[in-house]
């Protein structure tokens, strides 16, 4: 029973992770400017990977294995946040304007 529950939760979490990865990818392809694309990408890294790691975490055989999973997530999140910051900073310094709706444009 508890195994069934655990497997079910894993499947739900994996599907959730896959959803965020898919949404992030679509955002990366479809969003209009570099800032919003970065936003989409970091969501995939952060929440998508977070849910995936969570799905595996409840299946972990040992504490060590679980800690490794958490470490992977933490490294990926900090790296992704840092890279997003670098890209956004570079774009900002190069004078890339953020996208606005046509009716809001000056």
């Amino acid at each position, binding site marked *: 029973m508890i195994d069934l529950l655990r497997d079910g939760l894993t499947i739900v979490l994996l599907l959730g992770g896959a959803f965020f990865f898919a949404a992030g990818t679509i955002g990366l392809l479809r969003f209009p400017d570099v800032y919003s694309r970065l936003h989409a990408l970091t969501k995939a890294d952060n929440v998508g990977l977070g849910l995936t790691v969570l799905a595996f975490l409840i299946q972990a055989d040992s504490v060590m294995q679980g800690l490794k999973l958490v470490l992977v997530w933490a*490294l990926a999140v900090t*790296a992704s946040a*840092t890279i997003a*910051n670098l890209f956004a900073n570079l774009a900002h310094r190069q004078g890339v304007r953020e996208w606005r709706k046509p009716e809001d444009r000056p």
Partner: protein
Amino acid sequence: MSTLAMSTLAMSPLATTAFDGMLAVLIAWTAWQSVTSREVFRAVMLFVVFGLLLALAWLRLGAPDVALAEAAVGAGLTGVLFLESLGHLRRNKTVEPPETVAQSRLRRWAVGLPVVVAGGLLAMVALRLEPRVPGIAGLVVRHQGETGVSNPVTAVLLDFRSTDTLLEVVVLLLAVIATYGLVPHGPAHHGPRVRPPATPRPPRQPVLVWFVRRLAPLALLVGVYLWWVGSSAPGGAFQAAAVVAAVFALLRVSGMEAAPPPNARPMRLLMVAGSVAFVSQGLAMLAAGRVFLDLPETVAYGLIVSLEGVLAASLAACLIALVAGAPRPPRQSGERP
């Protein structure tokens, strides 16, 4: 990934085939895109993606050692080297006359033809391979006990076929020597030299600095671990060195370059140390009445692990020197700083 994790993640044959097929198509596609891309930056990025996918393919083929090396050296460090070269190209723009159509055609043929011939030959060889030849795996496993290490790949690289590894170490040292040889200096280079304008250093990125400060010690630890674990699991000197060199590259881009400079005398000694230690180990065996590089069973484990330690440090110094590029040419007298 451990065999345990592999077995728990076992997929149905259909899913595995679909995944492998997708991987194969993606590898071919990124390779093609990288070669044909007109924008150099895009080509480099695609090359890195290609390397990572290739590492995944090696993992699927059950060769985690090769996968690690491909990810660390093939995708990671080669990518960094390409990016560094790209930066140099952009900073020191030389005005060259545009290529004529004939020149462009010649260049394409000169590169394309050998690649097609070599590819064709490889394909011929691959098609003629006997699918189920026993290979040397059984032989390695049978004699692995004589090396004292429990990772068969390390047994091959550092004992059974250590000549190959020795040559790889020397090749890397030669690459550094060639890079340093490109620095124009001395009386032979008195031609008019245009000094590139000093590029203003980009401002320090506080977020990047924060990240690198925390990542660098962790990554160094991973490097040491990769060396240590090499005797019993995938890892070893090359992978460890690649990780350490990557730490250096990170420090460099975040403006926290470490002292001493990569071309300082102690660093140069370290670069040579790997080849010297390897050759002297081989010579010591000769002196003891054995074959060159043939390790006696009693001390094989200690020799392998310690040589890998020296190699890891030495290869790291070489890779760091490659990433840092050739030292700046010495200022000629009379030239204003």
